[in-house]
Structures are given as C-alpha cells and as structure tokens.
C-alpha cells in the first residue's frame, strides 16, 4: 500500500516550500504507521478509539422517521462518539501519529469548534501541547466549544481577519505551522489541505462506513440503497462513504449548505452559501486543487451557512473527483430547512443533531417528501430528486450532536419563524 497525491486532477501539494519537508515527512509517517501498521500504530489507534472514544457507535433504526418517510431509515450515531462528533476519529489518529513522529506540539484550526475540541481532548489524553486557531465569528457562535477547548488546557487563538470563519482559521494555522514546522504537527480537521491530509483524514474517518456497512447488513440483511451525509470539507462525508464507494448500487449523497440561496453577490465577493461541490469551480486553495467558491479572477469568496462547520469555500479534492465521476451526487439544503430538520429530529427521535448533520436530515425530508406531511424544505426544486432515488433503505450519518448549537438555533429559529421550533418566549427577558 502506498499513497497517491492526486484524485484524478484534484489534490496535490500547493504549499510554501518551508512546509514541503514536513509534508514529505508526514507522507512517510502516514505510509509507514497508518498504511503498514508499523510499530502497531493502527492497533493502538483502534484500541484508543474504542476505550477512549467509545467506538463502535450504534447504527440505530429511526422508528419515527421510518414511518414518516415510509421506508427504512437508519442513523449512524457519530453524535455518540466521545466529544459529540465524528471529529475525534481523525483528531485522535493524527495526534497519536504526531506522537509516533516525535513531535511535541499540535496546532489545529476549527470552525464549529468540534474539531478543535476533539483535538484538545486527544492532546490532553495523549499529553501533548495544543493550540487552536478559530475565527472571531465562529468564537461568537460556538462559545461552548471555546470553553471546552480551554478546559482541556488548549490555547485558543482568535483570528480577526476576513469574515472570521474557517477559511481564515486555516490560513492562520498554516502560518503557525510554517513558523514552527520542526517540532509541530498540524492536525487538519477535514479531508482538505495538501497530500497526504485528504487521504489520511479519510482513512481515519473510514471507520464510520466500515462499521455502518457491517451493521446494516446485520440489521437489515443487505446493503443500503443510499447513504446521506452533510459536507463542509467533507470528512464525515467520505468517512461515511468510503467503504461503499465500490458498492455501485449504493447511492451516495453529499449534502452541502445552501445557506440562503445559490446566487453570488459579485459586488462584495460573497456567496450566501457553502456549496462548493454544487456551485464551485476548479481552483487551488489551502494546498489542493479542488472545487472552490471563487470569483472569475480566482479570488476566494466568503461563504455562508447558519452552521459554522459547513461554512467553508472549498471542499475535499476526493469529493470533487467523485462528483465529476458521477459516483457522489452533490445536493444542498438551505439554512431554514436545516433548522426545521434540527427541531424535527429532536422532537421525533429524541436526538438533538448538530446543525451540520441537520443538513443531511433536511435533505432526507426533501427527497422523501412525497410521503411527508407537506412541510418540506423551501428550496426544493420539483422533480430533481425523487423519493425513488433514495430508495427503501437509507443510512443517514448523524455526524454530531447539537448542544453546541443551542444558542444559534434558538435565536435563528425565532428570527426566521421556523415552524417546528418550540416557543422559548417565557424564558426570555425574565427579571
């Protein structure tokens, strides 16, 4: 086994020369420890994922959703992984790898704060110094995660540039890495960045589909007709898809953040969405050739989503490649539909999903709406994705839990008059 720097035309290593030796050193370590299990790395990783992380996570039949959509719906419960999101699979793998490589410092970017939190947890667990970069906007909308990172003794560095979201946090983490590259490993949080990151992060996350594939065969007696996962950078997405990619009968849906619409504000170089697979163009960002939200000159646009973890102008090169190959279908749902889905799952199934994961659930509502009660996503385009496409047996990846999102959800649900939202009025503004 070895590693390939490109996925078709996508991927590559577009980083400053100062980082290239570190990228080469990492590629070597990835091939030896992760691909060849040198020194028992993979065994230790799996053991820690089980004991510290709580794997395997359940694949749960969603009874109420199955009834609502008149088909079998299964939820892959990554929200039950330690820390509350799939992010630990990757963070634990990379922090452990950094230890094997003899590094003594970890840096990471974070958007929703889930990757930062997972990295801070893994760094505390494995006793290594940790610094997290986070955009100011994200700090304000994901405060609980900022406190969790600090409580795990990680430094949290606010990034004030630009729109203060994930893109700027990645820029700043790359700058730190370029300064401290000799003793520092950059734990990138998704399947983005220069090779080997996209492939390595996917490998760490593939435990999701490895388990889900076994579990669905056990519970339903066959492979699913489709797998649905949200996509920001795309790590939970490829994690949920990877083991199914060769099962050609299994349809794979990557649900991007449609924000408030797929238009582009050219005047201000602003995209009111984060749908780089659906609406992006090929370009080079953060070390890789991939699909990007950019203006015709190649300047990167500011993206938007109500969900911080999906709010990114790029996407993993492997997903871009699988979309061009027609193996993965990119779809998108808007902010309002995601908020509706958040409340729906909370009420019907007793699970509070992350706003990111709510996008996957909102797509389910839209695609399966022929049997739903009519309150489907407002951005549906009639006829483009019918219930038949999802099929009778569907796995949805619940990539994380939504505790971190409560402030945003309560505020936004009120501002947008989200039907499914409970009233919080009596709790507001009391003496």
């Amino acid at each position, binding site marked *: 086994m070895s590693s390939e720097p490109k996925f078709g035309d996508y991927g*590559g*290593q*577009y*980083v*400053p*020369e*100062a*980082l*290239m*030796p*570190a990228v*080469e050193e990492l590629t070597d370590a990835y091939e030896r420890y992760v691909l060849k299990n040198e020194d028992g790395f993979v065994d230790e990783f799996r053991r820690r994922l089980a004991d510290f992380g709580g794997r395997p996570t359940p694949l749960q039949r969603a009874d109420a959703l199955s009834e609502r959509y008149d088909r079998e719906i299964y939820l892959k419960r990554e929200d039950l992984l330690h820390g509350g999101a799939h992010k630990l699979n990757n963070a634990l793998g990379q922090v452990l790898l950094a230890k094997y490589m003899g590094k003594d410092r970890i840096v990471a970017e974070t958007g929703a704060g889930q990757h930062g939190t997972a990295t801070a947890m893994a760094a505390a667990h494995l006793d290594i110094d940790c610094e997290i970069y986070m955009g100011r906007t994200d700090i304000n909308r994901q405060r609980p995660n900022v406190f969790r990172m600090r409580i795990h003794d990680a430094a949290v560095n606010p990034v004030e*540039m*630009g729109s203060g979201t994930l*893109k700027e946090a990645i*820029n700043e983490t*790359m*700058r730190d890495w*370029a*300064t*401290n*590259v*000799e003793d520092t490993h950059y734990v990138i949080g998704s399947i983005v960045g220069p090779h080997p990151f996209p492939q390595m992060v996917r490998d760490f996350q593939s435990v999701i589909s490895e388990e889900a594939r076994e579990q669905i065969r056990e519970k339903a007696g066959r492979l699913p007709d489709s797998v649905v996962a949200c996509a920001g950078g795309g790590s939970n997405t490829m994690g949920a898809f990877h083991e199914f990619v060769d099962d050609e009968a299994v349809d794979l849906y990557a649900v991007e953040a449609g924000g408030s619409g797929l238009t582009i504000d050219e005047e201000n*170089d602003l995209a009111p969405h984060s749908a780089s697979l659906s609406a992006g163009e*090929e*370009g*080079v*960002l*953060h*070390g890789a050739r991939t699909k*990007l939200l*950019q203006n*015709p*000159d*190649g*300047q*990167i646009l500011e993206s938007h989503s109500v969900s911080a973890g999906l709010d990114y102008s790029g996407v993993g090169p492997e997903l871009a490649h699988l979309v061009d190959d027609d193996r993965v279908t990119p779809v998108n749902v808007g902010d309002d539909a995601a908020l509706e889905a958040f409340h729906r799952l909370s009420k019907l199934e007793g699970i509070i999903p992350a706003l990111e994961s709510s996008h996957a659930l909102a797509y389910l509502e839209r695609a399966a709406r022929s049997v739903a009660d009519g309150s489907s996503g407002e951005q549906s385009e009639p006829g483009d994705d019918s219930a038949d496409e999802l099929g009778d047996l569907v796995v949805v990846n619940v990539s994380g839990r939504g505790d971190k999102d409560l402030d945003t959800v309560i505020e936004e649900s009120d501002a947008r008059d989200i039907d499914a939202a409970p009233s919080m009025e009596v709790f507001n503004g009391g003496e």
Partner: protein
Amino acid sequence: MASEIEAAFDDDPALISYVAAGDPDAESTKEYVRALVRGGADIVELGLPFSEPIAEGSTIQGAIRRALEAGMTPQTYLDLVADLDVDVPLVCMTYYNLIYQYGDDRGVEPFVAAAAEAGIAGLIVPDLPVDESDPLKEACDAHGLDLIFMVAPTTTDDRLDRMLARASGFVYVQGRLGTTGARSDVSDETHVSLDRLDAADLPKAVGFGISEREHAREIVAGGADGVIVGSAFVDIVASQENVADRLEAKARELKAGAVEGAEKVPEPERT
C-alpha cells in the same frame, strides 16, 4: 545568456524591494515604485494581491487587504505594470490560483503571456513548490520569464537540487521560518542557507525579516548577492505620511548597507 533579472546583480549587491500593487491605489503604487528606484532598488517585486495570502505576515496581509478593497484585480495589475516606465526588472509575486484562473480558459499560459506582454520579467509564487511547477516553468520558458524559487531553512538537499535545476533569475533564500515581516536581527538560518548555496551559479538574495541597513550589510557580508525587503516598505506605505520620500530614503539606506557588506571581509561576527 543571463536574464534581465540576473543582470541586475552584476555591478553591486542588489536591493529587491516589495510593495503590494494597489495599496492604497494604482496611481500611488506607480509613484512608490519610482521612488524605490530613485533610492537604489535594482529589482521591484510587485505583489498581485490574493485573498488568501498564507505566506504573509500581518504587515503584508494588511497591504493586500487594502489593495483588494481598493479594487486591484489581475487585469488592473497588468495595466499598472504596462504603464510603469521604470528602468529596473519587475517581478510579480502572487499565489497560484490567480495565475491559474486568468483568461477565458483555466491554465497558466494566458497569465504568463499577458505578464510578459505587460513587462513582467519574472514570477515568484510562494504556494507553488518545485514538484508542482512543471506547467508554469514551461510557460515561463516559452515567454522569457524567470521563475524564481524560494529555498527555506527546512529545504532538504534533494529538494534543493531539484529547485536549482529549474531556477532562473535568482534564488530566493528565505532567511527564517515563518511568514514575511520585519525583525530586529539576522537569523543563523540565513548564514546556514547561504553556505549551502555557495556553489549555485545563480545570484542569491535573502528575504523575510530584513528591515535595516545593518541587516543588509550583515547578509551581504555573509555571502548574499542581494537582499529582499518588503514589510519595512509596506509599513511606510501604510503610514500614509510623506510616503514617496520615505520610501526613497529607506531604499537608499538599505542599498548602502548592502554595498557596505560587499566591501568588508566576510564573517567578522559569526557565532
């Protein structure tokens, strides 16, 4: 045959000065470039601003943001360059995506052709390591542009060999790890890198962190053929006070330091 850029190192140690084009507007940039040349700059590196400048420290990030806010685009950049009537080689420093997206079809050729036409003599692309550089190198060769590579303190010997096999114009020696930005000393890494490049047959210019006459002197005394200065000039531009005169004076000071470095016997104060 030595390129126009290589020839700029012929007489005495070269001062290579950087400003971001369009900070605060295109007209001012022209005035600033002329001032730098009057002060003794032998090569001017003009930044074409990109929205995600990952190799830049906060000073140049600020310049790039101001230039973008003022509306600088690849096209207005090339117009600015075509309008500049200075007598020194101009080098374009930018990021790969802007080069790749220029023109109607994606690919690097249209930008390189247009840059050559406008009067650019070479390119520096900080996010393009040697391993990804084949298409751009080919286009630069076809249009007579130098492609300048950066050698970092972390660059391994085999990478250095690959770079030197393709480099032209000069070798950009990154004086320290990290991002661009003015510092108050010359790093030991600079001396180590210069020693490693002793046998290279291209001129060697050191950048990252140089802001004072004494730095320029020490670096040239240590074996460099030139110094690259950016943030110290950008700070003056950002101050908006008497900019052209101060740029000229700063360039004169740095050039004098570089020349002094060449007069002295090398390595008096190395530790």
